[in-house]
């Protein structure tokens, strides 16, 4: 199937239904950034309620009814949709769909992905899923409100869940098709000379991520069908016998199991969180190598660690279920695998830290974000340990401690990695650099306020404040001493929002007025920098690509420049 662009493409073919991985990557990028913004706004409304209970919400209060006060049912709705949107419509499409699609073919020296039409189909399936999720807000009873985890029996009876399930089917399909494409592309389309151990760490990260998606998502798709049937076909896959809802016995056959949903859900959702972090780790690796002007320390360690991490991520899922009554043997099994999985994460983080030793560090904006990623992911990872041990998890499960833990990994963790990627690869996509001044104006407040939001959550969680509480713990005696943090966290959130304004301005202004640069402004070694900026449509490179050396040959003794590109003889 030839992909020659000898024929003139019309506007639709070129920009809307393009099969060029770069256009599709940008489509994913724009859509996902908009969803991230929307998900952030949902959270800000929630945080207003937590800081100033039962007071009218400014700006959007009009949408919440006559009083302008956020009601508990809507709070739950915002909470469920915040999680869903950030994970499935925001981070994964940005990390995998946007960055993966745009950069991976370039880094391996390929003209496009293995299946360009399938690539376009993946994007449009994501788009449809996103439209369905957004539309659910406008349904008579609103969007889903049973948490992004959709536990039955609540999710069987609560409103908005049917649209959520249908939307998820489209999103899962998009991910499956996409990850299939990534695996075949990375295995088959590496340029001559690009052996497995010459691949940039970013490509390895995307490769492992693709396996996680392709093998872990299907059980959730199966579970989503089952839940859909419970909702619309009166089956009782997840409903036990004798269930009473709103005072009446539920009229179903029964003998189902809510635990079944939890197992099938977390079988995906645990690998999913590694899907959230791995691409960001990949980006951080690229940016650190480039801005330290040295090879990454422990390349092979990094590769083996990330592969091992991927494998282990499939067998830890029930650490989300320690409190469901499983016996000692299984609990011990999952505690053990969970402790083991922390080892490769530590190995990766350590390798990155050691990479800084003796380096000539350039504190460019991407590097600032990459450097900040390290301690932030460190905190996120370390706070996961008490959650992975059953005994301490009894106290911490379903508290704000958990929210603090996973947000540290995803928010100042992954999102900082993704910002680093945007600043780093912007010149390749547009031929212009983003403003360093605006970049620093974006970075410093973001770094400070991220910690302002999430650090106090550990304090609240340790005190026992449960998550998903509309009033943030007001009614509980054990929460009284830590309630004052609510206002502090909310203000940090609003300030974090303000800190994104320089970023948004930077993106738009730099697209048209940014400093014009040549094809390799960062002096980088990996293959994408040998292509023009932006790369040639449907072909990427101007001639044949051949790879002669490893991905991080910086400061090679005796070399002319302080970097030796992979494609240079």
């Amino acid at each position, binding site marked *: 199937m030839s992909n020659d662009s000898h024929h003139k493409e019309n506007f639709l073919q070129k920009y809307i239904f393009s099969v060029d991985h770069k256009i599709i990557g940008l489509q994913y990028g724009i859509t996902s950034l908009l969803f991230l913004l929307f998900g952030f706004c949902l959270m800000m409304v929630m945080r207003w309620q937590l800081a100033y209970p039962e007071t009218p919400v400014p700006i959007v209060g009009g949408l919440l009814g006559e009083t302008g006060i956020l009601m508990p049912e809507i709070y739950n709705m915002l909470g469920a949709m915040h999680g869903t949107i950030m994970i499935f419509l925001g981070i994964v499409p940005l990390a995998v769909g946007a960055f993966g699609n745009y950069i991976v073919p370039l880094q391996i020296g390929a003209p496009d992905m293995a299946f360009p039409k399938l690539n376009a189909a993946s994007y449009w399936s994501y788009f449809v899923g996103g439209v369905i999720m957004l539309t659910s807000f406008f349904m008579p009873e609103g969007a889903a409100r049973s948490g992004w985890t959709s536990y039955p029996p609540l999710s069987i009876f609560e409103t908005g869940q049917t649209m959520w399930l249908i939307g998820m089917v489209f999103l899962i399909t998009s991910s499956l098709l996409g990850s299939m494409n990534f695996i075949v592309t990375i295995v088959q389309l590496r340029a001559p000379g690009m052996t497995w151990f010459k691949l940039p760490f970013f490509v390895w990260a995307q490769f492992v991520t693709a396996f996680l998606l392709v093998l872990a998502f299907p059980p959730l798709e199966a579970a989503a069908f089952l839940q859909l049937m419970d909702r619309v076909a009166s089956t009782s896959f997840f409903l036990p016998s004798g269930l009473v809802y709103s005072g009446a016995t539920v009229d179903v056959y029964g003998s189902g199991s809510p*635990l079944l949903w939890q197992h099938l859900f977390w079988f995906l959702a645990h690998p999913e969180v590694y899907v959230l972090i791995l691409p960001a780790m990949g980006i951080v690796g690229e940016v650190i190598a480039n801005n330290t002007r040295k090879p990454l320390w422990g390349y092979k360690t990094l590769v083996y660690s990330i592969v091992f991490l991927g494998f282990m991520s499939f067998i830890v899922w029930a650490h989300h*279920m320690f409190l469901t009554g*499983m*016996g*000692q043997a299984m609990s011990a099994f999952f505690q053990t695998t969970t402790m083991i999985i922390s080892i490769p994460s530590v190995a990766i983080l350590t390798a990155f830290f050691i990479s800084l030793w003796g380096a000539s560090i350039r504190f460019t904006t991407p590097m600032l974000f990459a450097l900040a990623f390290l301690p932030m992911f460190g905190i996120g990872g370390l706070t996961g340990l008490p959650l992975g041990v059953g005994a301490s998890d009894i106290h911490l499960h379903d508290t704000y401690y958990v929210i603090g833990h996973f947000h540290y990994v995803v928010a100042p963790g992954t999102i900082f990695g993704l910002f680093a990627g945007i600043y780093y690869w912007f010149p390749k996509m547009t031929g212009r650099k983003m403003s360093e001044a605006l970049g620093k104006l974006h970075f410093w407040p973001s770094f400070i306020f991220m910690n302002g939001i999430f650090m106090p959550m550990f304090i609240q969680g340790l005190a026992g404040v449960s998550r998903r509480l509309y009033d943030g713990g007001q009614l509980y005696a054990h929460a009284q001493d830590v309630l004052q943090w609510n206002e502090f966290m909310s203000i940090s959130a609003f300030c974090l929002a303000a800190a994104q304004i320089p970023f948004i301005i930077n993106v738009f202004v730099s697209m048209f007025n940014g400093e014009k640069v040549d094809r390799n402004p960062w002096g980088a070694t990996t293959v994408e920098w040998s292509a023009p900026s932006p790369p040639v449509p449907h072909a990427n490179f101007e001639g044949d690509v051949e790879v002669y050396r490893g991905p991080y040959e910086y400061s090679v003794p005796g070399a002319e420049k302080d970097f030796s590109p992979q494609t240079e003889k």
Partner: protein
Amino acid sequence: MSDHDNGHIEDHIRVYLTVFGALAVLTLLTVAASYMDISTTEAIFLALTIATVKASLVAGYFMHLINEKQTIIWILTLTFIFFLFCMFIPMITVIDHTSLS
């Protein structure tokens, strides 16, 4: 896959037809076995064993897995390991449950 010529193909056809015969026989066998007077556990074991043999024939000969490339074998092995986890671990967590006694 251009390593087949007409003579070779005849052998392959013979293999396919033999497998077809084996599959038909095994199908009837599995139905007959279900009428045997054995315990449920034994019945499950027997049925799954026969099914696995049939599946191996289809996978091995119809899907050419018997001489497929390493990449594919690795991917399937990995998948199979996770499949086993997905099948058995949830079941075990229910069997091995905490109780008040």
